[in-house]
Structures are given as C-alpha cells and as structure tokens.
C-alpha cells in the first residue's frame, strides 16, 4: 500500500447516494427472489428444467464410487447429466454445496446421503424452500418423517442394520465353529447404521451363549483406525480372539492386515458390510479368513434416489398419493459369502437396473419402524 494514496473523506452527498443505491438493490433482489418461489413448486417439470444431483461423502471409497456410477446409469437412461457433490464428511460443507445448487433457476432432484442424522432436517428444508425434490438415505432423525415436511421430500431409504449386523454375525459364528471369543469394531458411534448393526450383533450374541464378546471399540469406519485398534485388542486378549466382527468392510480389511501382522491371517474369521470389491475378492480367495459381507447394492442406491425424485418432478409420481410405507422404507440387502460371491464379483451393467428405474419401489422390504 503506497503512503501516497490520498485519504478521501466521504461527503454527506456521497453517503446519501450510497444508502439509496443499497436500498434500491436490496429491493430489486427481494422482488426477484420472491417471484421465483411462486413458479417452481408443485407443477410438473420437463427434462430441460431439471438438474440431477448426488450428494455423497467422497468418491475415494468404492461404496460411494459405485453409488455415483449407479446414478450415472439412471441419468443415461433418461438422457441427462448428473452432478456429484462430495463433502468429505463435513456437514457444513454438504449443506453449503446443496444450498448453492438450489439457488440456481432449475428444479433440483437431489439424492443425498446426509453426513449425520442431524443434518437431514436442514437439507430437506432447504430443498423444500427451493421447490426441489429430495430423496435421503441412511441417516434421518427418528421423529422426523417425509410426510410431515411435505411432498418435496419424496422418500427416505435405509437398510435395516439390525438385519445385516445379525446375518454377518451368524456367518461369523458358523465359521468359528459355534464357540469362542470375538471382538467387535463399530462405526462412528453416533451413526444410525452403526447403532443398528451393533444391535444386530447383540441379538445374535443373545442366541449364541457359547460366543463371548471380549471387547468392542469404535474404529470410525476407517481402515487405518481399525488396524491400530485390532492390534491393541489382539494384545489385550492375546490368544482368545477367535473372530472379528466389523460394521463395515473398510474396517474389516484393516483388521485383516492387523491379523496378518500378528501371524493370524486365515486363522481368525472376519466379517464386514458393504461388499466392496476388495472384500469380495478376499471372500473368493478363501485364504484370508474373510467370511461374509452384505451388499445394499450401492448402484441401486445411487440410481433409485434420482429415479424417485425425477418421477416426482416430472409428475409421473404423485407424492401426495403415496402411502407412508412407500415414503420411508427399508431396501433389500444381500448377504454374500463364498457360495454366491461369484455373481457379485463383476460390476453390473446398466441394463440390470432398467426395471428398477421404472419401478423404484420394487425393493421395498417394509416401512422403517
């Protein structure tokens, strides 16, 4: 900054002019945004007025990468583009990105995996205010329902974690021969899937008194943390750990490496959830000890969320006429072990899902209780 820049004093006339200009511009903006709201909600839209958006955690894990691909399958089937937003686990960032997209003039059809349950309300409210259509998946508060908020929140899809946690636990106990000690690696303790899956494990433990839960720790869904935690637990209960239950594949794969480092690879069975390709290959090889995983079919999740919103936006689906069981429902899950892993090893073709895009409720296994 040069010292020679003269300091000018703002005179009275100048100040008055600035104030008037500010007032006029505020009034103009207010008028224009008010008129936008009236035209965008309720009426059926054509393809040109719609923009498809996916909002997920990141593209750097196979689950969400498959989700994005599924979204692309749907978009290709209707001849549109899809935009992918990634928030890297940052709730504020997710909301800000969605808001900035909503401020455009097209109708937004959003398929979102909210970062935590507490974020869902802000997201659906923002979409409703902008006249868009949203489908949420996995996380929402228990007492907040789509029909309470309005037709713009088309549906909430989740997967019963108690079922998946229970099923893999059963497979694990089977592989252990029905008795022994296990350790459990939980996801982020606040997440709905983490809590549900652990409840499923506890239900299975209740049915199998010969299995003891030696310890349970959170590895926060990540491979790195799971490695460290498993290492510590293997020391703490050395010799007693006969099985590892992990709430997702990433953590199970980290635990597998810790078992390998301890010389226990193949001797201690491991289970996870998500059906990432690495886990599927591990199950197929049979040597690593990876016994089972569960697929919620991320491709389906990525596409069906957009399909529901798109049909609502074009008027093909009348949201107000849907029953509650179709507005908040559990999707289908597939337990994968050595016997059926082959059919999941190759990534699916877009054609496998065309019937799901026309009937998005085909995999509705029941309302969320």
């Amino acid at each position, binding site marked *: 900054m040069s010292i020679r820049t003269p300091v000018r004093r703002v005179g009275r006339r100048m100040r008055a002019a600035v104030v008037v200009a500010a007032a006029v511009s505020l009034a103009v903006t207010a008028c224009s945004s008010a008129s936008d709201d009236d035209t965008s909600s309720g009426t059926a839209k054509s393809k040109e007025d719609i923009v498809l958006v996916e909002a997920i955690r*990141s593209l750097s894990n196979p689950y969400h*990468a498959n989700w994005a691909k599924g979204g692309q399958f749907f978009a290709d089937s209707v001849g549109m583009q899809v935009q992918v937003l990634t928030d*890297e686990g940052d709730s504020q960032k997710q909301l800000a990105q969605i808001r900035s997209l909503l401020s455009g003039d097209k109708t937004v059809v959003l398929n979102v995996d909210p970062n935590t349950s507490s974020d869902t309300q802000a997201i659906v409210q923002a979409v409703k205010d902008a006249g868009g259509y949203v489908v949420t998946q996995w996380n929402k508060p228990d007492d907040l329902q789509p029909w309470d908020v309005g037709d713009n929140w088309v549906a909430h899809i989740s997967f019963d974690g108690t079922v998946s946690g229970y099923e893999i636990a059963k497979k694990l106990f089977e592989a252990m021969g029905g008795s022994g000690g296990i350790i459990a690696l939980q996801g982020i303790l606040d997440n709905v899937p983490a809590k549900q899956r652990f409840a499923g494990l506890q239900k299975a433990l209740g049915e199998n008194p010969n299995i003891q839960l030696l310890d349970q720790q959170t590895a926060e869904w*990540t491979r*790195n943390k799971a*490695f460290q*935690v498993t290492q*510590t637990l293997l*020391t703490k209960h050395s010799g007693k750990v006969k099985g590892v239950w992990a709430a997702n594949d990433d953590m199970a794969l980290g635990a597998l490496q810790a078992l390998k480092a301890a010389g226990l690879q193949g001797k201690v069975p491991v289970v996870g959830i998500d059906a990432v390709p*690495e886990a599927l290959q591990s199950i197929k090889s049979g040597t690593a000890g990876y016994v089972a995983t569960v697929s919620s079919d991320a491709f389906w999740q990525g596409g069906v969320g957009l399909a529901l919103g798109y049909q609502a936006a074009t008027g093909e689906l009348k949201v107000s006429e849907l029953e509650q069981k179709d507005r908040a429902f559990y999707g289908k899950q597939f337990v994968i072990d050595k016997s059926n892993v082959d059919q999941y090893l190759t990534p699916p073709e877009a054609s496998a899902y065309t019937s799901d895009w026309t009937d998005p409720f085909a995999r509705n296994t029941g309302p969320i209780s």
Partner: protein
Amino acid sequence: MSGTATTLAESGATGPDARPAAAAAPARYRFVRRALNAGPVLALILLCLLFTVLNSQFLTVGNVRGIADASAILLVLAVGATFVILLGGIDLSVEGVMASSSLVAVLLAANDRNGNDLGYLAVLGGVATGALFGLVNGVLHVRLRIPSFMVTLGTGAVGIGVATVLFGGQPPRLLDEGLRDWGIGRWAGIPRVVFIAAVVLALGYFLQRFTKVGRYAYVIGGDEQIARLSGIPIARFKVAAFVVSGTAAGLAGVMAAARLGVGDVQIGSGQLFATITAVVVGGTLLTGGRGGVLQTLVGTLLISVLANGLILSGVSPYVQKAVQGVVIVAAVAATMWTARNRIRVVK
C-alpha cells in the same frame, strides 16, 4: 541444544568461532532449563505407571511392541512437522501428501491395477512426491508471502485431489511382498517400521543439531526480524524446512501403504491432528523457536501410550475421545506451567 529460547550466540548463528554459550551459563540456568523440559517426560512416566496399575498387560513385550508399532508412522510425521513448527509455521498438508504418496508408491510397485513392478524405486517415487509437495509449500510461502497455514491447507487439498484421480474409485492393492514386509514384518522381534522411525529420528536429530537447516530454524522461529537483520538467508531455510516436512509425510504415506497393503485417499485421515498434538505435547512451542525432535519423540509416545492404555484399561469407547482430550490439555498445561509467566504472547 535443549531448546529453550536461545541467544544468537548459543544457536551458533554467528559462525564457527562462537563458543556455545551454554557452557558459560551458570549451572542454575541449566538446571531450570532441564526441569522445564522434564514436564512431558514426567507425564509420560506417570501415564505408563497409571496404565500398568490398571492393567498388568500394559508392560508386556507384546504390548510394548504394539505401542512402538503404532507410534512409528506418527513419529516420522511428527519429526518432519517439528522443523516447520520450530520456524513458527505449520504444515497442514500431511494428510493430502500421505494420500498422494501412498498412491504413487503403490501404482509404481507391483499392484493389481497395472503392470509396474519397480520395487524400491516405488518407495523413492512416493518419498519424492512428498518432497515435491514440501517444495511447493515452501516456495509459495516464501515467494508469494502466503501464511503457511493457508498454503499447506491448499496443497493438502491438492494432494487429496491428485490422490482421488489416481485412486479411480477403488484402492489399488500392493502385491509386492518385499515392500509389504517392511510394513508388517519384524527383525529380531522388533517391527521393521520401528527401525525406519528410529533412523528418521536419528536423521532428524542430526539435522536439528549439526546442520544449518536445523539451527537456523530455531533462530528464525525465535525472532524472524532479528534473523533477517543479521543477514541470514531466511527464504532458503524456510523452504528447506517445508521440504523436510513434506519428505517425512511422503515416507509416512509409503509406510502406511506397506502396512495396509493399499494406496488409499483416506490413508492419512486423522493423522494431522495427531501429528500436531504430538509435537505440541512434547514441548515444542507452536510459535516456534523452542523444542526439538527429542521432545517430539516424547510427545508421540505420550499419544500412543494414551490411546493404547485407554483401550487396555477398558474405558468405554463412548468416552475415550473425551478422556484423550482432557489428558492432552492437562499434559500441555503441565509442560507450559513453569514457563507460562515467560510466554507473554498466547495466540
């Protein structure tokens, strides 16, 4: 050099003829300086005693080995970060650099994505990636005068971005068993990663004590204006410190890839906070000018012992993070207790 606020003469900045003034200082000052540095060590010993009482398994060979293994990668990161923090700067790009270097290393070595099989050259590639990021950090910070906080935040994001592109949706698996052995194998019962970390620590100490890069880091961190006025070419040494930090992060990324068997964008997640905590808890001031790699070693051990001990003593996972936070604040307060009157500016 024990790392308290030093005069120019003590830091050796005035040339080869200056005798270390430490020998001329009264014994009383030397004792006070030692006592100030003892805080973290005392805290570490206290924690170890506490956890041994709570669970006798804490001091078993297997567990100590586990703690050493868990500390190795963190120590490599923290030693590199120490040089930047000594300058008074900070390096927030470690997670991004680890991500990029792990992917570069895995994609150059034998992997399940392409036909490369460069073996140890892949390690060199990963480390060089880290050095490159460090160079970019340093040059942008010095030439464009962007605060290190902002520059490293930006390059960290670039690192994640580059890693995501290389990642391509699925982590490439490292199939080179020789390299995997460096991550999870042992020599004479000690995990190999611990040997790597020990070598890095020794190199770091050598850099800090016997080279200009290390000694001038103290001067620049202590008072940059005085350093500039006394004619030290600050830019050069700042860039060097960032290169050291980036190289360490690159090596840490390769070590993590060897351990987990994949190149992954999330491979460094959570390490930034742990690294900075390790450096600060050890006694290195965030404002720079004081501390060192030996202090960082103590800080790293404190963190690993804490994480390990909490699991061993059966503290509920719902409460562990809170307990870790409390202990770390207490440890830093204990370290700074005797010095708090002397530190006039707290940022």
